[in-house]
Each structure stands twice: as structure tokens, then as C-alpha cells.
């Protein structure tokens, strides 16, 4: 993949950073570089992944403390420049807390930590994060979260629908998310946040490859 490099951000409490890096390097031959959350120089990476985990122990709210890291401050310019940012699970929570994506993620309706495979409908092609949406397509990805219930007010929901910002919806809503939302993009399409874990679905030996396309699309311009 030439010199294209994906930065994988590591917060204290991140635990999917190695998985993301493994999936990108081992399955897709895309170079990665770990970034400690105190870094603010993102000049030598072409895309960023905020991985899953429990940044800062999920203290106060999931993603609330991570939002104040130097790296997240530097992300503003990165996003404005049009480069791609993928927030997975805790990364999605950080993107909503820091205002890159609208809404918030709160405790699952049934209070359980849900670890399961879920079927998802691809709703929007914005940003090109998902393959072939000419026909309604369903993919299967793993979820693993206790606080993945997407919540937003009705005005925000209308905006999400009208502007085609809803990327993924659960077929069988596992957590009580508004409008079955599992993933959304920003208006430009270069930022995607989702609760399911594409990096855990990149090899048949671990149960599927439906996550490959999303990770591979990090290299899209």
C-alpha cells in the first residue's frame, strides 16, 4: 500500500489497538503506527483509528476524559483536512463526546454487557466505508459493549436521516439504540463511528470477513 500509514491511537485503557493494527497489517498489508494519546503531531499518518476499549476506565462517561487528550485536540485539523477517521466502539464514544459526531452513547437498555455477532443493514454509502450499497446489503459484525445505546434528540435524528449520515442499523436492535443506529458518519463522510468491531471480522478463522472492507476503505482519498 505504498507508504500509506494508519495511526492507531492508544489511550490508557484502550484494548483493541493491537487487534486493529493486526487486522490492518496482517490482513490488508496496510502499515500502521501507534500513537500515544499525548501525541499531537499527526503529520506522518494518512488516516486515524480510535480503537475500542475503556479509555481512562470509562470514568465520568465513556470517552469523556479521552476527549481532552492532546491527540483529540489535534484531530480537529486532521478531520478538516479531509483525512479519514474511524472510531470503533470506545472510539465512537470518544467521537461523540468530542463533538465530531452528533448524539451520545449510553448504557444498554437491558444493562447487560453484550458480546455477540449482529446483523447490520448498510444504510448509507456516504464516505464509501461499506461495499456496494446499490442493493440493500446486510453484513455481520461482532459487538462487545455495555454502553452502546445510541441516543439523540428528534431534530438530530431528522438531520441524520435527511443527510444520509446513518451508516449502519441493527437488524435486531440489541441495546435500545434510537432508530436501531449502529454507526454514523459526519456530513463530509470522512469520519465514521460505529459500535460493532470490523477488526474482529477480518479472517474466516475468527468467524467472518465482513469487516475487511471498512478497514480497507481507510485508504480512500
Amino acid at each position: 500500500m505504498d507508504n500509506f500509514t494508519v495511526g492507531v491511537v492508544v489511550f490508557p485503557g484502550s484494548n483493541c489497538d493491537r487487534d486493529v493494527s493486526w487486522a490492518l497489517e496482517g490482513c490488508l498489508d496496510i502499515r500502521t503506527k501507534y500513537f500515544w494519546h499525548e501525541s499531537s503531531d499527526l503529520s506522518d499518518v494518512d488516516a486515524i483509528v480510535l480503537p475500542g476499549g475503556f479509555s481512562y476506565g470509562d470514568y465520568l462517561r465513556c470517552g469523556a476524559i479521552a476527549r481532552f487528550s492532546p491527540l483529540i485536540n489535534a484531530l480537529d485539523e486532521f478531520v478538516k483536512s479531509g483525512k479519514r477517521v474511524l472510531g470503533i466502539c470506545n472510539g465512537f464514544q470518544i467521537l461523540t463526546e468530542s463533538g465530531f459526531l452528533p448524539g451520545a452513547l449510553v448504557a444498554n437498555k437491558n444493562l447487560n454487557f453484550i458480546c455477540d455477532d449482529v446483523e447490520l443493514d448498510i444504510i448509507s454509502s456516504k464516505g464509501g466505508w461499506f461495499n456496494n450499497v446499490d442493493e440493500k446489503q446486510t453484513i455481520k459484525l461482532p459487538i462487545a459493549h455495555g454502553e452502546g445505546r445510541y441516543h439523540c434528540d428528534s431534530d438530530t435524528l431528522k438531520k441524520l436521516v435527511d443527510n444520509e449520515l446513518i451508516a449502519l442499523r441493527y437488524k435486531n436492535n440489541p441495546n435500545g439504540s434510537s432508530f436501531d443506529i449502529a454507526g454514523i458518519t459526519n456530513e463530509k463522510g470522512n469520519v465514521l463511528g460505529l459500535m460493532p468491531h470490523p477488526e474482529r471480522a477480518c479472517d474466516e478463522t475468527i468467524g467472518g470477513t465482513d469487516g475487511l472492507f471498512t478497514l480497507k476503505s481507510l485508504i480512500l482519498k
Partner: protein
Amino acid sequence: MDQFAVKVFVRLRPSVLDPAGEATKSASIKLGAEGIKSLRIGKMIEVKIEGNGENEVREKIDLLCDRLFANTVIEDYEYSLEKL
């Protein structure tokens, strides 16, 4: 400099489902408590803070509440302030 004790209350907005509150309500009823119509769980944050007078301290607390203590997408906050 004056010192103030501040108590911040952060609550889920009424429109946001509180499953932990619902579970606690259910347990309260099992305990035998009667008449509970609603039970919702919030957070209380205690802060001791210095500043030049109440207005300056209120400005700082407003910033903290709005940007950190509460996520105003899902939560409301209020606080009380006592000069020490």
C-alpha cells in the same frame, strides 16, 4: 481569594431512558417499599474551588459543567455553592 464548596448534580435528561434507575426501582419494590412512582439515578460531584468572588467561581463551574461534568446531549446539571 475566597474558597467555595460546590455541589454539582448531574442527571440524565427526562427523555433519556435510565435502565439503572429502572432496575433500582424494581429492587426497591422487592424490598417492600411502596408508592415509588419514579426512580432515576444521577451523579453528585463535590468541588472545592478558589476564586475572586462568587461570580468568577460560577463562571469556572459553568464551564466545567458544560464541557466536562455533564454531556448536555443526554444530561442536565445544576449546582449549589457555599462560601467557606
